[in-house]
């Protein structure tokens, strides 16, 4: 296997990564883009399969993908980065093999995934993230269920409801943990350019979803081999109500940054639940704490699609400039982009604060509830570890195995943090996060050895 060398390697092909790749390329840098999916677009601009009907976001994605290709960005689609070393060297794997990439600069545009909170029954088939339901429908043209409930918090639930309704879904209820607040309307009022979008969303969902419930959380999901009911309860306390006859429960509380690559490269991270939790810190030019590593998009703090596009472009331009390339438009262009980014972030980050997870999410009544899905670690085991003296995520991990499994702590992060910080009287920041390790994804050992052998051969 040959090591392919580039000026800039962009990890993640969503709005931020595509923008960064094109921007760096336009400065004259050689650029490679690496993305786990067969088609670019990431989550926000996910591309439908050939027979699908593209959404507005998909059209944006098509434009970004085409622009990157037009400008000569090399792309490794269907590849996941499994290792990253200073200098920089990346090892990727795909379905059949892998690739080795050397780059002078890295743009980490690794995005985010749905942020989830545990509840009894959340591991049942048919219980999935809102994003999973959206992807099944938008990309594959398949509805996640015949009778769907959406529950959690944040505007994304409404966006997913719209995607599903547009494809003929029957949605029984949408359950939002927050109550309507003046702040929600006040925030929207300050951004007239969003009114049309908000109105479309509100009208379609309220007309076609018979129950929109505010101020309630999922108490439990029930079913034998598949979910068939969900009970919800008021946030402040009160009797639970059961919604029966469902076959899909889509859950989520906004998004959580995917910090595996930035963590592996020793970047500094900060904690803010309104930004999705732990995120890579980056300056106005996208520079992380590690020279040569830039952050773009949701990984630097969940802020939405427009900030992703802008921060991606900025990071791409600055990565190229720091390597000695000239930015077309120079300092003026960058200053304008930074200004636009600051404004764009205010909208998304404001939403993140308004819909920040409620502390009541930590109140899981049943201590037998599995918090770590991968290693099947219960809430009781986490609490026992806290009582035994654990005060950091790493200790919880080594004592209980929570976070050691396939997903490396992504799905359980918020639940364990909520449980442990409440039990210990700590802040989320103090609990810390687990450093990423190689390989960044579980890989087939035989295949990994083959990839490593090939990479070793090419270096000798």
């Amino acid at each position, binding site marked *: 296997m040959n090591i392919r060398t580039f000026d800039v390697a962009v990890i993640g092909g969503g709005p931020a990564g595509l923008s960064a790749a094109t921007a760096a390329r336009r400065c004259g840098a050689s650029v490679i883009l690496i993305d*786990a*999916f*067969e088609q670019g677009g990431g*989550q926000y601009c996910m591309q439908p*399969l*050939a*027979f699908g009907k593209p959404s507005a976001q998909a059209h944006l994605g098509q434009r970004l993908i085409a622009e990157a290709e037009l400008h000569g960005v090399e792309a490794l689609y269907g590849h*996941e980065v499994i290792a990253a070393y200073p200098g920089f060297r990346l090892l990727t794997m795909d*379905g059949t093999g892998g690739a080795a990439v050397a780059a002078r600069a890295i743009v980490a545009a690794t995005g985010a*995934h*749905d942020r989830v909170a545990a509840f009894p029954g959340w*591991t*049942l*088939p*048919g*219980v*999935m*993230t809102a*994003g*999973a*339901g*959206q*992807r*099944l429908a938008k*990309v*594959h*043209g*398949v*509805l*996640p*269920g015949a009778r769907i409930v959406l529950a959690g918090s944040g505007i994304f639930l409404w966006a997913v409801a719209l995607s599903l309704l547009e494809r003929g879904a029957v949605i029984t209820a949408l359950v939002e943990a927050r109550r309507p607040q003046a702040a929600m309307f006040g925030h929207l009022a300050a951004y007239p350019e969003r009114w049309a979008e908000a109105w479309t969303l509100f009208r379609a969902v309220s007309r076609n979803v018979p129950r929109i419930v505010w101020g309630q959380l999922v108490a439990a999901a029930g079913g034998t*081999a*598949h979910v068939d009911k969900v009970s919800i309860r008021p946030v402040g306390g009160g009797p639970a109500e059961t919604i029966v006859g469902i*076959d899909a429960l889509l859950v989520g509380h906004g998004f959580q940054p*995917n910090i595996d690559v930035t963590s592996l490269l020793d970047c500094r991270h900060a904690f803010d639940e309104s930004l999705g939790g732990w995120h890579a810190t980056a300056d106005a030019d996208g520079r992380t704490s590690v020279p040569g590593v830039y952050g773009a998009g949701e990984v630097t703090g969940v802020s939405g699609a427009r900030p992703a596009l802008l921060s991606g472009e900025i990071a791409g331009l600055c990565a190229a400039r720091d390597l000695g390339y000239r930015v077309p438009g120079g300092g003026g262009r960058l200053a304008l982009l930074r200004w636009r980014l600051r404004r764009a972030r205010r909208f998304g980050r404001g939403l993140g604060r308004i819909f920040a997870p409620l502390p009541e999410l930590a109140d899981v009544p049943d201590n037998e509830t*599995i918090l770590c*899905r*991968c*290693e*099947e670690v219960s809430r009781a085991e986490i609490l026992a570890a806290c009582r035994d003296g654990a005060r950091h995520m790493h200790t919880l991990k080594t004592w209980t195995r929570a976070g050691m*499994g*396939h*997903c490396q702590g*992504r*799905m359980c992060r918020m639940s364990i943090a909520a449980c442990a910080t409440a039990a210990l009287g700590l802040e989320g920041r103090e609990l810390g996060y687990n450093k990423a390790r190689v390989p960044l994804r*579980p890989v*087939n050992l035989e295949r990994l050895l083959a990839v490593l052998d090939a990479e070793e051969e090419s270096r000798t």
Partner: protein
Amino acid sequence: MTEPIELSINGRYHSVPAGISVAAALRLATPALPLRVSHRGREPRGVFCGMGVCFDCLIVVDGMKDVRSCMTAVRPGMRIETAPT
């Protein structure tokens, strides 16, 4: 609309749209069937994150274990097994 393709799920043949994910195909063909059972508690599991990061949706494809159904496209003649781990 693309031509449907044939694949087998636990030995039974099904017709599904070409190019969709195995997860989507299972949702169409065998919606009530769990994808696997968990290691410790032997509890049924299915698709959770849908984007390749949770590793809950693992099935056996053409004899290869631990394949993420949400990240794998169907192929004609594919042998899918929803196996207990």
